[in-house]
């Protein structure tokens, strides 16, 4: 809670925290060749002290911004006071229904763990989004890192692409927090469009000439007579330029070229930005990217809830079901965690405008892959179909808090959530204060 980066401490901390060790060359090299991603079971070093085995190499977060209604998606209550116009559809788990808005995901449910009893204390979009993405409630003086930032920070993998990518972000994109902005998610939009800032505007020769002038004329003059080793210790001009060029020229960018997949698969994911983003996420997993977040927004249905939710659910259903199946077909599901959720759910009570409002007291999160159980539903909301709104908040069976979820996902990725680290000003802090929910693991 007492946070601000003092310049000196921050510089030292970023040097200490950084795992990149490029040696800047004068002029321009084409950057390091990508290290092939071949490890099947990677042991993650935990500050060099404690090793926690994990097979998980990547995490895909399917982020539903705006608050998807659990009642119109993963936790329908058809025919009850709170059910609205939803009908249920049988899933591949016996006795479990999803809303009829998600028939394809229902068919894949046997590959997933579905938590129906998520709870939090944040009902504001921005605060709840930060809460869910970081596992901590927002604090005025400390910005906690998102899951992707932690995973990237703890990884000793080296690839040309960013290890933390956010596709189609709207508000509150995943940030590095106190780990530093170098762990912020690299943002990009519809994969069919050109990648943001990865394509130059002049030919290579001209680009080389321009950057040569920058390095050998302008930057050389700037460093004259100033702090020793200014570039290496502070400016990072050569390092970032070389890394940028590596990224622009790398073969790994083919992950974004979706035309390398056959048409049937592209159609199955959905011919829309979200569908394309999900397919790109699978291809990025193949390239070794550590965490990819894809956002589908527009779930904030204060008015006309049923139609709005169903419209969104259609896109989600196509893409999510295809993603899980494709990962399984490519033998990546064991090494990849898929997490699908929004920042909260929606009220059981329907308001006079036909909408549902914000509801953090019992909403759904879907997990698939990695060590998570398959074909398991955890928790429940309103199991006895109460007809009273008075105590409906209390009718959550086996609640899972957001810190618990974070602790569990981190553990699944081979990170000890109780491991202590230090913020740049020396405050000791753990990655998560939550409890690992072992009942979610196979």
């Amino acid at each position, binding site marked *: 809670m007492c946070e601000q980066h003092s310049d000196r401490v921050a510089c030292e901390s970023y040097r200490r925290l950084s795992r990149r060790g490029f040696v800047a060359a004068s002029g321009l090299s084409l950057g390091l060749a990508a290290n092939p991603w071949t490890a099947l079971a990677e042991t993650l070093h935990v500050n060099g002290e404690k090793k926690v085995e994990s097979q998980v190499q990547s995490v895909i977060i399917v982020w539903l911004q705006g608050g998807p209604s659990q009642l119109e998606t993963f936790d329908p209550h058809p025919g009850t006071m709170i059910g609205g116009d939803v009908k249920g559809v049988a899933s591949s788990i016996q006795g479990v229904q999803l809303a009829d808005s998600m028939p394809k995901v229902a068919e894949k449910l046997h590959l997933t763990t579905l938590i129906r009893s998520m709870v939090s204390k944040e009902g504001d979009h921005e605060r709840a989004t930060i809460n869910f993405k970081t596992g901590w409630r927002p604090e*005025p003086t400390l910005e906690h890192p998102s899951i992707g930032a932690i995973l990237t920070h703890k990884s000793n993998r080296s690839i040309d692409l960013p290890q933390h990518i956010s596709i189609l972000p709207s508000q509150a994109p995943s940030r590095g927090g106190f780990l530093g902005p170098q762990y912020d998610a690299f943002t990009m939009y519809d994969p069919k469009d050109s990648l943001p800032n*990865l394509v130059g505007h002049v030919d290579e020769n001209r680009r080389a000439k321009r950057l040569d002038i920058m390095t050998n004329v302008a930057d050389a003059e700037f460093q004259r007579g100033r702090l020793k080793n200014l570039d290496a210790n502070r400016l990072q001009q050569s390092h970032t330029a070389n890394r940028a060029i590596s990224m622009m020229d790398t073969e790994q960018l083919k992950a974004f070229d979706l035309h390398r997949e056959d048409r049937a698969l592209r159609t199955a994911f959905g011919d829309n930005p979200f569908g394309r983003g999900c397919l790109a996420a699978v291809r990025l997993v193949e390239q070794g990217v550590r965490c990819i977040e894809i956002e589908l927004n527009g779930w904030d249905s204060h008015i006309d809830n049923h139609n709005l939710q169903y419209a969104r659910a259609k896109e989600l259903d196509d893409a999510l079901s295809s993603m899980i199946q494709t990962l399984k077909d490519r033998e990546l599901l064991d090494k990849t965690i898929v997490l699908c959720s929004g920042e909260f759910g929606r009220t059981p009570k329907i308001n006079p405008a036909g909408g549902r409002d914000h509801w953090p007291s019992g909403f759904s999160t879907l997990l698939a892959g990695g060590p998570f159980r398959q074909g398991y539903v955890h928790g429940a909301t309103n199991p006895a179909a109460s007809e009273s709104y008075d105590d409906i908040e209390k009718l959550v069976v086996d609640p899972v808090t957001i810190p618990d979820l974070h602790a569990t996902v981190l553990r699944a990725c081979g990170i000890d959530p109780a491991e202590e680290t230090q913020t740049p000003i020396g405050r000791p802090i753990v990655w998560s204060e939550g409890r690992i929910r072992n009942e979610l693991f196979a």
Partner: protein
Amino acid sequence: MSEINSQAAPRSRRWIRRLATLILLFGFVFAIFIGTRPSRYESALSLRQASTLRNSTSTAVDLLAVRRFDEAVKLVAESQSLQLAETSDWLTQCRRISLALMGSGMSFDDIRALEALPERERVSAFLESCLADPRWANYWSERFTRAFVGDNNGPFLLYRRRKFRLWLAEQFANDRSYDSLVRQLITANGLWTDRPEVNFYTATADGDEEGRADPIRIAGRTSRVFLGKRIDCLQCHDDFLGNVNLAEGEETRPGTQADFHRLAAFFDGVSVKNPLSGMVDDGREYKTTLLGQTDPEVIKPKTPFAHELFNDHLPRRAAFADWLTHPENQHFARATVNRVWNLMTGKPLVGPVDDINESDPMMESLEILSSDFVKSDFSIKQLIRTIATTDAFRRESRSDVFEVTSDHERCFAVFPVSRLRPEQIALSLFQAATLQRLNDESNILEQLGRNDQLNKFVQDFGDLGEKELGTIPPTVTQRLLLMNGGVVENATKADLVANAASRIGQFSKDEKDVIRQVYLTFLNRYPTEVELEQLLANYFADEARKQEPFDASRNIKMEVACDLGYALMNSAELQWNH
């Protein structure tokens, strides 16, 4: 018939003659108007001269205070056996002023106008023109808005950030005394749409109790921004790390959890009574459960120190505001001076900006400026003038005589090299793309377009929000944005309409002239002889171009300008304060 025709012809000729006379007369008047209207340089020049003369008595800084400050800094440097750098040239000082007050580098036009003045007058003239420019008030109001209320959207119905910021800009433009401004914030009541200062409270009304300002957040923020003390950790426990000292002078008193909650207790009653009356103080007693206790207890409001300055006959928030801004409450002046110093130089005088360490060697310097700030009736403009007059502000950031170290920077024996904030980099890029000063006189479509691009750039670059006075280390994503993003591309492509680089390339007489003008526009300085030689010999030489395929359509000078402009936009010098 022929008689009628012959009469009609002279009449039409008369009308033609009359019309021609009118046109000539109009043209003559127009030519006089244009010929006698002052040129842009002359207008700006006379504005600055008038500004300097008009305000000369009211803008005179206390040179004694400046001398004492300079001495104190010098003593710190000497105690560490550190040499002092030389004074920097006027262009460097003006660039620092421009970055601090407007968020961008200087314009080519401004530099040319200043070159027409005697050198000794240039810095003060430029400073006064910036302080008179509405852009300064707008730019600084955003900086302080982030500190006062953060940069989040806040509760939808209860919060109007833009209104707050515009109100703050007006206060800065009028040089309202800072202590009275803060008192108005602390005691704010009413509708947040009608009384913009109320948004200081409504910004936090989205916590656990809807419609009620969050005393915890306000206490933490008040302490950081107005007292220069981070006490947020005391919300949950006493200080056991030795981080929070709440004693006065040389003594030490570790902060306690009770200190935090006694401060929060001043703000607990602020809530929305009804939509018509807005925020009022309902007098609710503050309750919390301290560590080790099982039940909540009532906590009475109490200031953390300097109790002798507290007037308990006033209502609680008024009493707190009065105590906070008391001329003898050193912490208030110090916290403000430290923040303004940070905005002027890129680094606080005593770091961190919102957690002043009283044992820091630079404390005496800070006290000198703080006393002067109080004497000036808490005038922010006067504080800026004073800072710009100090040796520390005017010093070079390099030395050819001694090796520069971090120790030199910490005590301002050299001017520190610090990363510009994202909006400063964006504004500097926009400024470098045009020869005129960016201002609000451009048409509304241009402004809207620029604001959109600015917001997008800052978002993509990575905005630190209310923590913007911290350090932003360079990242690869930022590098890609600068190398390949739209802002730099528009500023350095061959387009006479779009950017200054192309115009320089088109109208300069030769490559040498191009290089000089591009350096002036982008980096606000002339190239050194070494740079000029290198560029002409290695990159823009005729010999080099002879190797390339001949293309009659190539505009060589424009290419030189665009290539050089791109290189300078991506260089460290444009992105760092120095």
